[in-house]
């Protein structure tokens, strides 16, 4: 990681807790629905008129709904190392909020390591870097190699 200063790749989407980072969502005060990315203006529940939201941290763990990888360099605005390094992406059902959140899977794991129903946790990991900074994003990391089957 070197001595570069670490910055979030986007402001306000996740905490920077080095040990237990979490995605930052909002929850409607009227109907208690969660929103990620954060909704702060008007509740998207069609039966709710809520305009007030609390900031909440989402579950840091969940189960894999599905997964894939990317074998080719995406177009901008993705900022790729040169040469391009393939990565896996997982769609993860959060433990408490009944929602699925996408994220890259940490380096070192590819699709052969993943299964639907697998337990994963949220970590922060570099997305890209420039001369002075390393930009962090949330990624999913398998908790263990045991699978629980496609039960979600």
């Amino acid at each position, binding site marked *: 990681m070197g001595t570069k200063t670490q910055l979030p790749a986007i402001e306000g989407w996740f905490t920077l807790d080095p040990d237990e980072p979490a995605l930052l969502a909002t929850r409607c005060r009227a109907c208690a629905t969660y929103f990620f*990315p954060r909704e702060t203006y008007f509740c998207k529940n069609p039966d709710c008129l809520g305009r007030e939201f609390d900031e909440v941290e989402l579950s840091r763990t969940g189960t894999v709904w599905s997964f894939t990888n*990317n074998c080719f360099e*995406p*177009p901008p605005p*993705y900022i790729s190392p040169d040469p391009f390094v393939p990565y896996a992406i997982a769609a993860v059902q959060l433990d408490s909020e*009944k929602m699925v959140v996408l994220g*890259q899977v940490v380096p070192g794991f590819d*699709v052969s390591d993943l299964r639907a129903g697998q337990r994963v946790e949220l970590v922060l990991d570099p997305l890209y870097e420039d001369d002075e900074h390393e930009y962090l994003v949330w990624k999913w990391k398998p908790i263990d190699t045991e699978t629980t089957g496609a039960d979600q």
Partner: protein
Amino acid sequence: MTAEHEVAVLGVGMHPWGKWGRNFVEYGIDASQAALADAGLSWNDIGFVAGADTIRNGYPGFIAGATMSQALGWKGNRMASCYAACASGAQALNIARSQILAGFCDVALVVGADTTPKGFFAPVGGDRQDDPDWLRFRLLGATNPTYFALYARRRMELYGATQEDFALVKAKNSRHGLTNPNARYHKEFTVDDVMASQIVADPLHLLDICATSDGGAAVILSSMDYARKQTATPIRVAAISTMTPTFPQTVIEMPNFSTDSAATVAPPEFAFRDAIAQGAYEEAGLGPDDLDLAEVYDLSSALELDWYENIGLCKEGEAERLIRDGDTQIGGRIPGNPSGGLACFGEAIPAQAIAQVCELTWHLRGQAGDRQVEGAKVGLSINQGLFGHGSSIIVTT
């Protein structure tokens, strides 16, 4: 649907799909003129133009209704332009239908055309941190095939689908499109060919994923009264279902980072893609058993299997059996994508949903040549565009 809500398809026309590199307006002109000739009408008979927009061809693309009207010759017609991503063509058809049913015009031209860049579709340029479509590329590196691959892998994990099943879809479509004059690709691919192509987004191979193409398609819609003066057997539009998802949407959709949360509101009875078809069936007063053919939006070969279930050709988890048994090939129980689908066309976004209706119309008239689905009387098309644009159209004899 009651007869008073029907309109007629009087003419259809296409400019062949390809990578021609010409101005999209030229494809639109050729498709429009082909549709007019097919209807036996002239440009001066058209009272309303609905243009499906392209967002990658500058200002003329954003105002397709005006652009096409000017290209065909200003004559003071009413018009509209609309954008709904891959469902743009269906929305343009719906706008034209509404104008006809409201009595504002007798005959309308619906046209969509596109010129596409090479490679992955990329978001519109600039530094746009408030646009989920921009952000998913920046923060996730999630391309369109990423989402198609998540659905495909889900089928493998849940239903035991295999990559060979997906390849069977591609092989079937490549046979269907072999002699379609409007298709871009006229090459038969085997399962082995697909399996030997590079993995783009696991489990999908390059040959599982549709290309981006240039092309143009046009439909002439009219009132039923007007149509009966032109032909004894007009093709009828029985349904155009253009709808949004219902909250909470619990299936991850391009270009989103997450699903809605179902923590406080239960998911709807029908998931989005099921609801799109359900809406069309309800509007038409028909059901899956009434279909003779379907054009489904095979952005990936695996997605075609999802659509089989969404439109009710089989129960969830049974689509692999349909493709393995040959049920959806021409001559089978319910042919899917007799045109060859996106597998043979590649995607020309604003033209694609219109092209689906062109194909259905040729089959219902018995004019589909050696890919003809014999005796076709009812056809359904279905399609989904980025950001919650569903569309499904049912046409009948």
